[in-house]
């Protein structure tokens, strides 16, 4: 039987206990401290692996093509180098001096001439025209998605159409930023189009359909105009432009040619918060039951809270506050009012209260972060909490807030208790 220190030295050098000799495994069964060490080492490796896996990075689109091009001798010095190489080979064969001098002169002249005649490949001239002052996709998506719970059929159709426009604009912006996000954006564009905008369009009355078509056409035309401005695209940009063009043509054809067929897309899991919000908002269309709607809004609220924390951690206070407003809207219009509706239909169900508590916990998470976070992140969190206070009150059953002073003259509206005394 080996002693513990020898066993430990072996444990530090192996990945799993399965690799160990039977005698050592037997020792582990009998020795609690060595067993604990093996367990801790395993845990340590697992967490480090997770840390490395979190470091996700996708292969840039067109990287191999780009590597291939970079490796080609296209520049002037490389061409000259090839000519010199050929000349040296020739010189090695014929050692006469006058041949050497003649060949050197000839290759020099040829090198210069070729370098002058064969122009290097022109570099793509990329100018960012479009939309320079646009909001980040996450904020724009949160804004549209949080407003889905209110309004008429027309409003909901417009919200999804606006989501389509945001995705289209983001894809065009991404042409100038490496083209790596375009396949995902095209996928989510198509899902929003077929499951949201297009399906709600069919349910609109004829005169509204006419107006909707006009507005959609404006969005597609503006996208096409921006694509046309890219004069000398690189290979990767050409591919991206083709993909966006197809995406726009597909949606336009589906309206003009009355196509309703939807080729099912390969299921793609949402990977960013914006994608998760879109995914959740599409689920809203599949359920009419108020409790289900409240549940889905709760999911939406979770994603918004994560985004608020992320934004405030990265000191983007304005955006954290804007997300706070969306959070407030989801709490009041999405969760609380749907739960109220559900309670009217079937009162006293325990899961209603459970959902309410669950949503309230999200506001507590924000508050906990405010207490624990550093000063840089606190400002954004504080603003987000302030603007979402009404939603929290509504969940706690406090009802709507008092109206402003100017509105008190409205007929039949009560003044708050003690107001007259205060005056």
């Amino acid at each position, binding site marked *: 039987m080996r002693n513990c220190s020898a066993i430990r*030295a072996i444990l*530090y*050098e192996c990945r799993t206990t399965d690799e160990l000799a039977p005698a050592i495994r037997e020792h582990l069964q009998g020795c609690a401290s060595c067993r*604990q*060490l093996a*367990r*801790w*080492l395993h*845990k*340590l*490796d697992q*967490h*480090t*692996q*997770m*840390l*490395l*896996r*979190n*470091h*996700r*990075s*996708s*292969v*840039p689109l067109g*990287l*191999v*093509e780009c*590597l*291939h091009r*970079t*490796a080609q001798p296209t520049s002037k010095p490389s061409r000259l180098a090839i000519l010199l190489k050929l000349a040296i080979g020739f010189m090695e064969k014929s050692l006469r001096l006058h041949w050497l001098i003649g060949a050197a002169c000839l290759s020099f002249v040829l090198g210069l001439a070729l370098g002058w005649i064969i122009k290097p490949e022109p570099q793509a001239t990329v100018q960012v025209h479009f939309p320079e002052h646009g909001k980040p996709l996450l904020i724009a998506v949160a804004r549209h998605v949080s407003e889905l719970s209110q309004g008429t059929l027309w409003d909901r159709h417009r919200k999804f159409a606006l989501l389509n426009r945001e995705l289209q604009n983001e894809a065009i912006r991404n042409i100038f930023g490496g083209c790596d996000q375009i396949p995902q954006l095209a996928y989510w564009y198509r899902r929003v189009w077929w499951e949201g905008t297009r399906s709600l369009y069919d349910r609109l009355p004829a005169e509204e359909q006419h107006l909707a078509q006009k507005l959609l056409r404006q969005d597609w035309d503006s996208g096409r105009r921006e694509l046309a401005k890219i004069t000398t695209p690189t290979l990767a940009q050409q591919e991206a432009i083709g993909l966006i063009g197809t995406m726009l043509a597909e949606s336009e054809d589906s309206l003009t040619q009355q196509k309703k067929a939807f080729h099912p897309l390969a299921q793609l899991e949402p*990977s*960013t*918060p914006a994608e998760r919000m879109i995914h959740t908002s599409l689920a809203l269309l599949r359920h009419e039951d108020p409790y289900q709607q409240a549940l889905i809004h709760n999911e939406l609220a*979770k994603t918004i*809270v*994560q*985004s608020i*924390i*992320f934004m405030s*951690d*990265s000191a983007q206070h304005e955006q954290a506050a804007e997300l706070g407003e969306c959070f407030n809207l989801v709490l009041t219009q999405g969760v609380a009012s749907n739960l109220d509706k559900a309670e009217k239909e079937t009162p006293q169900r325990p899961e209603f209260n459970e959902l309410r508590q669950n949503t309230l916990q*999200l506001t507590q*998470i924000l508050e*906990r*972060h405010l207490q624990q976070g550093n000063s840089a992140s606190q400002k954004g969190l504080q603003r987000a909490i302030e603007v979402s206070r009404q939603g929290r009150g509504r969940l706690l059953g406090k009802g709507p807030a008092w109206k402003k002073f100017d509105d008190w003259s409205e007929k039949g509206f009560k003044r708050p208790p003690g107001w007259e005394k205060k005056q």
Partner: protein
Amino acid sequence: MIAPEEIDWVNRAKLGDRDAFGLLVQQYWQPLCAWLGRLAGHRQQGEDLAQEAFLKAWVNLSQLHEPRAFRVWLFRIARRLLHSTGIGDRSQGLLRHIPADQPPPADCIVEKEGTNRLAEEIASLPTHYREIYLLWVQDEWTFSELAEALGLNEATARWRVHKARQILLERLKDWLAQES
């Protein structure tokens, strides 16, 4: 251990097949970026270095005699690039500034704190321990492959992995005990 199809990709890439090289890039982009990112202390620098390493690999692929050794050869190129820029030597302590890909799930806050601490402790390891431990932990690397990629002998590679894990365990004992 390198898969048989990878050997085929390397052979095809050596003959100039760009698609085969694309498959190799696809295969090793993520581990190489993660490793270089953690060593350089900055995600973007890691990606830039990985791109440069693949370019060097593509240009010099004809010099690789043993297709089986592609992975080791690629990481050796990447390491040499890292050291030639001097980033790897001055990156200690920068690692904690690498932002996460996405906001953390709301219910994983406590876990996130532990992971942050682990990241900080790994960042504070001396470079020669850090590079070998991160490589050893992320894939099925044998000690002889590690030694070859990092220009060491096998016994030193073993010792460095041993030491890196020992240091980390010593520093993170309380957290690991909590986890258990």
